[in-house]
């Protein structure tokens, strides 16, 4: 039996009737066509499906859509500026070659939106801790860390401006 839910995704309210077993990831991808949230393992380890639910990063593959009833969900599509410009975190990944295939990148950017919302100048330990839940098979993380530093600077510059 389907359940009615109301979820706000990237500022837009969605009312839907969903099966109780439908994951939030599949709801976003299949029902809303928001395919930036990628599924790498579907058992909560790789972090590619990371989204931000009510300000806290979460695995969309381990969250049921019904659990997100009433929640505000942010995905990578909602990070890009409304005019299509890249958010400073996205820009930093471009500048520093912090990505290759791009599959894990959405989850990493989402993890960082949470971290950098909470800490304007995170310590290296905080960054390592936050990104400890995101696997990347392409980059070796070196340029991801450079991109985080770049993002911190770009965000600081934006606050000044």
């Amino acid at each position: 039996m389907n359940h009615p839910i109301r979820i706000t995704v990237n500022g837009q309210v969605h009312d839907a009737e969903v099966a109780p077993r439908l994951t939030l990831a599949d709801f976003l991808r299949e029902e809303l066509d928001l395919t930036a949230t990628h599924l790498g393992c579907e058992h909560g380890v790789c972090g590619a499906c990371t989204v931000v639910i009510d300000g806290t990063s979460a695995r969309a593959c381990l969250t049921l859509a019904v659990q997100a009833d009433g929640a505000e969900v942010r995905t990578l599509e909602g990070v890009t500026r409304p005019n299509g410009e890249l958010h400073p975190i996205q820009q930093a990944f471009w500048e520093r070659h912090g990505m290759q295939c791009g599959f894990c990148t959405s989850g990493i950017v989402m993890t960082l939106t949470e971290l950098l919302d909470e800490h304007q100048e995170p310590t290296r330990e905080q960054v390592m801790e936050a990104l400890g839940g995101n696997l990347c098979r392409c980059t070796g993380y070196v340029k991801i860390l450079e991109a985080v530093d770049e993002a911190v600077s770009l965000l600081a510059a934006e606050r000044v401006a």
Partner: protein
Amino acid sequence: MADGNGTTKVGAFGTRVKRVEDPRLLRGDGRYIADLKLHGMVHAAVIRSPHAHARIVSIDKSEALADPRTIAVFTAADLPEMPPLTCIDAEETTLPFNQQVMASDKVRFVGEPVAVIVAEDRYVAEDIMGLVDVEYEPLPAVVDPEEAMKDGAPLVHHDTNVVDTLEYELGDPKDAMANAPHTLSERLVTQRYAAMPMETRGCIADWDERWETLTLHSSTQVPNGVKANLQTFLGLGENSVRVIVPDIGGAFGVKIQIYPEEVFISFLARELRRPVKWIEDRWEHFVGSCHGREQIHDVTVGFDDDGRILSLRDDCITNTGAYLQSLTLVEPFIGVAMLAGMYQIENFEATSTVVVTNKTPMNPFRGVGHVQAAFTMERIIDLIAQERGLDPAEVRMVNLIQPDQFPLAKGIGNVLAGEIIYDTGDYPRVLKRALELAGYDEFRAKQEGLRAEGRHVGIGIGAFVEETGLGPYESATVRVEPSGGIAVYTGSCPSGQGHHTVFAQIAADELGVDISDVKVIHGDTDLVRSGVGTYASRSAAVGGGAVRNAAGGVRKKILAVTERLVEAAASRHELADGRVQVKGSPSRSVALGDVALAVSPGRALPDGIEAYGLEHTDIFHPESNTFSSGVHIATVEVDVETGLVNILQYVACDDSGRIINPLLFEGQTHGGVTLGIGGALLEEVVYDDEGQPRNPNFMDYLIPGIGNMPEKFITDHVQSPTYLNKDGIKGGGEGGAVGAPAAIANAVADALRPARVTATPLTPERVFRLAQAAGLVGDQTP
């Protein structure tokens, strides 16, 4: 490249230009296979063997078919007769060890496809899986290759599990060994691990009844190869199959061949007249996509007082798993044929035995064969040093091939690749540079002091030569549009590396335009009729070579047409800023788009110009393969109480010839090394004695996370251009994966002296036991 105004262009060849691919992917606008939806599409789920070895007694589909949600259930009995999947270079005399598209009478590994369910969504398709009753008669399984070689072992296919034994001999190995002042022997084992991209495999097949045409969207590295195979399996003509490759979320070799799912999903789409989508889940990826690496080397080496190698013998066994896949034989060949790496070894003999067992099949992934060759040889060099009381760096130095010896025919051939001829290189320089960057001498000077403080620190070298830039060919078409835009079509389609950027850099360099004027088109067999794909670090060297040649062909025609448009001899023209101008008088110039317009269909062609369009296609067949090299040096500290290895510093100095884009090259090195760190310390696909995989998930199979990074990571390169393509490019995608296990294992061995480090991965448990055996911890500590 400096243009006419003496300024450097954005995206010039050799510069650190950021990738043109990224903004789209960063916005979430990538389109990976799982993101695609076709009208009327249905979803497939695959029933796979839960047994490593069993006879299929019966398959009862009745309950599944009675469920109104079921669209189709297909087993081998429902498929037409199809040939098995092929294996390249399997000897004609070798018995067939090939996999059928779907198992019919027998299953030979956990994960082998047995049936496929189609339903309106994947959730339902998985519900239906439970309604199919497959009755198996389990058979004894064999998982260890040496057990599989024994009389009385369970037989996987035929009356022997040995596929073949390859033999090599160079010089006079027996005599040289007998006369060597010193010899030592060791068994070195590389474990089974896997490419493990973050995106699994997947495909969507779409049959168009009106045109009797199949379109397969697939996350493959080899679209044209998949197309050719589908023609065979489905009995379709050249023009009735189209393969389209969406964005790929990493591949590293595991997407290098056609897989059974691509065949039967295509067949289902044709039968059902509806698009069928199948996306592999992570468990399926662990059991149903190829692994690599599992190889044993039994080595004896003869050497003189200085550690100079006089003779080398290797008996190698590769456990290929249940079936030969398209390129399975590459691993056993390269593992032995590339063993000598950077060293001059004139007397060499080897056997390489290929054995089947009841595990998932193996096929190449990042660093195939070279990883085991480097790990084996580099451990041997360190053992020689230990035996003679010499420094490992010195032993390497005395054995190196010298720069004046190139090109160097090695007298050995390789699967797919022909004779091994080292093209160019400067190994002493690469080694010296790496030692310098690692602060090797300084580390040695303080190491004993640190050890005296109870710190188990060590330094290890991993030197290697890697066959890259593999042929046989790659295609490129370059076209100048009347708008002034440049289109580049390549058969070498990417899986995340940055092909758009580097191919645009090459074309822009040849045609004097900005990379933003270049659009790179790939991954559609209707647009690129002839192409090979991306593997064996071939795209930049071979795909790039084709782009250079094709752009050069267009350039010639541009100059010929311009000669007639601007009154000056072609030799006086140069291409810059998207224009052709007379050297020294930029005012006398014409835009590339106008040159294209002048030869557009519908116009009168200028005198002497015979064909419309500014376009050139090149099929580039390099005469041989390029040989990249590298020296990697790891500095580690081992916690002997926990067995944890901390990489304090990692130095990678690679020589991949001329580099198109150092930024992307660094990214390749970092990524490759990190995969190698996984192989050195963490990753192993573990099976129990019954052939059940014990860790087919990311909780139990650990790939490196950000916490596994070296504390300090230094990359550098030497550039020895090859003569095999115009730009002097060699492959640079895999060296990291090759160098890291050797360097890290040697560093751990150095830290735990006198422990015997003979196998990877060096997991905490294995390291703890090594430390214990060496008397560094536990009961045996004084």
